């Protein structure tokens, strides 16, 4: 079993960890496949009310593993569809899902935090969507940011690119909870997690399911369309040039 994503269950709380710390937990095809497998396990798990999604090491997730897809024309579509599909799977889980943003959550990584019901970050965590700065299109994460903070604010953030602090992400509505420092992150996560675990899991699951229906967030067609658009732009000359310049390979 791949250890690129690990699952630990402790009573009513589970923890799902992106576990590729040497690559800042960048989303590779292998990691996303491991994530799919762990989320499938969770979906069949009774008695879990709260899931905490986090990253091993210093980062939450640095985004898509773009270096790995630079020279393989089919890889972008595979990678982006895996992300789009796992996002819907996580959203459809019956338990409350908390993103524990232990460090940088960039691009696809920041998108994953928006898929979660709650996002706990700390003041200095680096977050954001710098895709357009690299000639990329953040399509695959756009629907999730729109659901999270509304279409108007999502538009301003995605078109302007760049990164922000955890505090700014909290002000923007991307993070629901803010710890003043990394040291205080777990206290905030634990408090939220115990409060959520106190509720009835049946009522929680039913409420979440209705919310997903109301905001249309399980729409596979739009998720696929968005993933393919991101893949197409990733394969464009403009983006490939920008990426080669960034990774210093010609």
């Amino acid at each position, binding site marked *: 079993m791949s250890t690129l994503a690990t699952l630990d269950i402790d009573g009513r709380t589970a923890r799902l960890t992106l576990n590729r710390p040497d690559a800042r937990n960048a989303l590779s095809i292998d990691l996303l496949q491991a994530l799919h497998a762990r989320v499938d396990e969770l979906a069949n798990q009774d008695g879990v009310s709260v899931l905490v999604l986090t990253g091993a090491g210093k980062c939450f997730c640095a985004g898509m593993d773009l270096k790995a897809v630079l020279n393989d024309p089919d890889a972008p579509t595979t990678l982006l569809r895996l992300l789009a599909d796992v996002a819907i799977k996580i959203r459809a889980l019956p338990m409350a899902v908390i993103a524990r943003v232990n460090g940088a959550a960039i691009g696809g990584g920041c998108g994953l935090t928006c898929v979660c019901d709650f996002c706990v970050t700390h003041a200095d965590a680096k977050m954001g969507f710098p895709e*357009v700065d690299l000639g990329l299109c953040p399509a695959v994460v756009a629907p999730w940011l729109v659901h999270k903070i509304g*279409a*108007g604010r999502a538009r301003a953030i995605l*078109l302007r690119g760049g990164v922000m602090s955890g505090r700014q992400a909290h002000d923007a509505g991307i993070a629901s909870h803010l710890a003043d420092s990394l040291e205080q992150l777990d206290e905030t996560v634990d408090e939220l997690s115990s409060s959520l675990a106190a509720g009835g899991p049946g009522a929680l699951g039913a409420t979440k399911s209705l919310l997903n229906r109301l905001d249309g967030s399980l729409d596979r067609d739009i998720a696929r369309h968005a993933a393919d658009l991101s893949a197409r732009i990733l394969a464009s000359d*403009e983006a490939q040039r920008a990426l080669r310049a960034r990774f210093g390979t010609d």
Partner: protein
Amino acid sequence: MIRVDTLDNGRVTALVLNRPDRRNALTPEGLSRLADAARAAADTSRALVLAGEGRVFCAGFDLTLCRESPDGAVMRELLRALSHVVRTLRNLPIPVVAAAHGAAIAGGCALLGGADIVVTDMHAKLGYPVLPLGVSPAVSAPFLMPAVGSGPARELMLNPALITGSDAYEMGLAHELVQEPGDVAARAQQIASELADKPAVGLAATKRLLNRLDRTDSDEIAREALDVSLALTGGDEERRLLPAGWARRST
């Protein structure tokens, strides 16, 4: 009526409503020129700024034009031209930054629906005080509702009271807030220049997807909203209430 300024070595075009003695009140011809100029700018520039000359961005339709048109013909032209220009701005492949200084009222506030990013000042006046004139702001709803969400959109469109620039920022109608009205245009130009620096293909694709997600690319929805506003023109209610509008604005 519309001034075209080329900025930042041609990478940014500013379209400036240029009728300061009438608080940049909108006419059908002005709106139509604005749409044409916006399309032309998309061929030559990488970002667009929409601004107003003088003390305010735009006070809305020039209602004095409606005085000679009790059957509502001029109001219909204004509404159609407004809908057209907002859709044109929204569907441009380049980003649009609005510099809403001083006041963006009624049709002026509706223009902000075409922008991707709105800059205003803390004490600016914004809103849709048109229901008391027997006019429906429905034409703006498909653009305003995704910008601020359903609850605030209801509040803004049904309550004729104006809000401040600070309120607009809190609500999400504006995305950048500056202290002084005189600083709005410079801030908008700065944001436009930053956007003009970004690779164009990815930016255009992102904007297109956002338009699809919030359904502001839908001709059908825009048309339905326009029809709601058009249906009231020339009716008894509008004939009775509209004269208050030109009385107020012909000063």
